């Protein structure tokens, strides 16, 4: 099977679904979603807890319910999709090579490609935890899949390393299913998860959150039997004499998410060393013309609502590109992250191509209280917004207006800063 489509979307999770719907609504008929899993919806299918959709639908949905609304729309609109289909390669000319059991290997020529592959959990191998390598150590997301999809409990006595949202959610989930969660240890002096999850998943069940703590030893040859947790200093090194041993049969790791960009890399897409996702312009277009990125493959989000919003934008701009309606050229203005902001998405903007308003998302590198988010057009400060708190675990955003940018005809660099 060799085929041509206007838009090929790699991944049928929340980003891919929203991108497909928006692309179709923008007038592009020939759209196909290629999904590796056996159903659409991606990670939302195993996120059975509630709290999704507060921004989009103004109600609290569970993950599967949130996914269902988008999947139903994709089906109602007659958007094509292929399940159990693995994309093997994307060429710089946008030939997408994929395979599945029915069609074998096939190539689709796409006018535009939308990368929506999501992210992966940081594995134990990337964490430098000493000790044995027994069974019973899972990433929090793997445990989530086992419990919620397969109906299988990984263990009964649990320690969790890392306070990312999935770890917090799993602390509650395992407790509800009868396990004893002894503690959640977090290396940093602040949690990487949302406040509401700390309260509703840990405090509700009396599970201690040990900030500035890490696992320094794992015991057990066949299966994990205990871990040792120690306090860490400001240099994040364990402090001697603070070690406490916890017996357990399960260790869950919730130590960060990494955008899954193997396909992007082999296509030659330029990645940001900070987000590990593609560097994109205002249209969410990567360094390869006609290849767009959105959702967690671009940068890791905390809220799916923002994934859907961002992906819809990628769907619109990809549709415009596929229809040949994109202004070529135009002067690119750089968007820099400075003074406390770690990165921005997008990282360039072209006045000729942007909409009236452009959402720029960023994350802070530390916790700031009563600080200001400022935007500079070259040396001139054009925006200054007071925030009571800014934390690495919560994504921030500012809105750039085209009108305002036009008032600065020589504008070269826009800088987003956090100022005390």
């Amino acid at each position: 099977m060799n085929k041509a489509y206007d838009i090929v979307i790699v991944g049928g999770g929340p980003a891919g679904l929203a991108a497909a719907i928006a692309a179709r609504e923008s007038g592009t008929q020939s759209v196909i979603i290629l999904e590796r899993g056996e159903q659409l919806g991606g990670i939302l299918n195993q996120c059975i807890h509630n709290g999704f959709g507060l921004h989009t639908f103004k109600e609290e949905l569970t993950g599967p319910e949130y996914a269902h609304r988008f999947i139903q729309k994709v089906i109602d609109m007659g958007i094509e999709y292929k399940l159990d289909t693995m994309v093997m390669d994307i060429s710089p000319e946008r030939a997408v090579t994929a395979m599945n059991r029915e069609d074998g290997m096939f190539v689709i020529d796409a006018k535009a490609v939308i990368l929506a592959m999501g992210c992966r959990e940081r594995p134990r191998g990337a964490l430098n935890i000493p000790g044995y390598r027994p069974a019973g150590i899972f990433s929090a997301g793997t445990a989530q899949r086992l419990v919620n999809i397969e109906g299988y409990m990984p263990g009964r006595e649990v320690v969790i390393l890392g306070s990312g949202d999935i770890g917090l959610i799993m602390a509650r989930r395992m407790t509800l299913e009868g396990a004893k969660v002894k503690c959640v240890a977090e290396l940093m002096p602040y949690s990487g998860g949302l406040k509401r999850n700390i309260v509703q998943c840990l405090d509700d069940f009396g599970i201690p959150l040990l900030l500035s703590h890490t696992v320094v030893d794992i015991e057990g040859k066949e299966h994990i039997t205990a871990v040792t947790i120690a306090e860490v200093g400001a240099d994040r090194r364990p402090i001697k004499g603070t070690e406490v041993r916890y017996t357990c049969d399960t260790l869950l790791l919730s130590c960060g998410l990494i955008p899954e960009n193997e396909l992007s890399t082999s296509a030659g897409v330029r990645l940001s060393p900070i987000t590990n996702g593609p560097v994109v312009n205002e249209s969410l277009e990567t360094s390869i013309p006609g290849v767009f990125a959105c959702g967690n493959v671009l940068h890791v989000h905390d809220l799916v609502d923002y994934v859907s919003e961002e992906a819809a934008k990628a769907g619109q701009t990809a549709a415009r590109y596929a229809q040949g309606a994109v202004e070529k050229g135009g002067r690119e203005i750089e968007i820099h992250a400075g003074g406390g902001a770690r990165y921005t998405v997008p990282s360039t903007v072209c006045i000729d191509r942007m909409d009236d308003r452009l959402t720029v998302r960023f994350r802070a590198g530390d916790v700031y209280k009563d600080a200001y988010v400022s935007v500079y057009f070259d040396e001139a400060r054009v925006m200054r917004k007071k925030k009571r708190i800014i934390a690495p675990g919560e994504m921030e955003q500012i809105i750039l207006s085209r009108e305002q940018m036009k008032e600065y005809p020589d504008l070269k660099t826009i800088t987003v800063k956090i100022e005390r």
Partner: protein
Amino acid sequence: MEIRELTCINCPMGCLLTVTMDGDTVTDISGYTCPRGKTYAEKEVTNPTRIVTSTVRVEGGRSERVPCKTESDIPKDKIFDVMREIDAATAQAPVVIGETLIHDVAGTGVDVIATASAI
């Protein structure tokens, strides 16, 4: 007089709220920086509720489990009673999203419904 400390969950600020109670009556709330914090503290000490989400075993289909939730929030102290009934329940495939799986779970007057379809 009883003093309870809470963390507000309405925004990332996470204000530390202090509630003073005389029996079941709230006599003072402090520590909040906006009205939402005050409302949250009041509800949390007088009538704390949660939505419970879990899964129900599926028989006669391809899926092992179907996700579910309490259709509305239930009293916080009933969470484990609700879980016991959810763990004991089974659903027959096919299950349609929104379908009632348990009526009046643990005497709360709230139904448990499927949050996805299962075949």
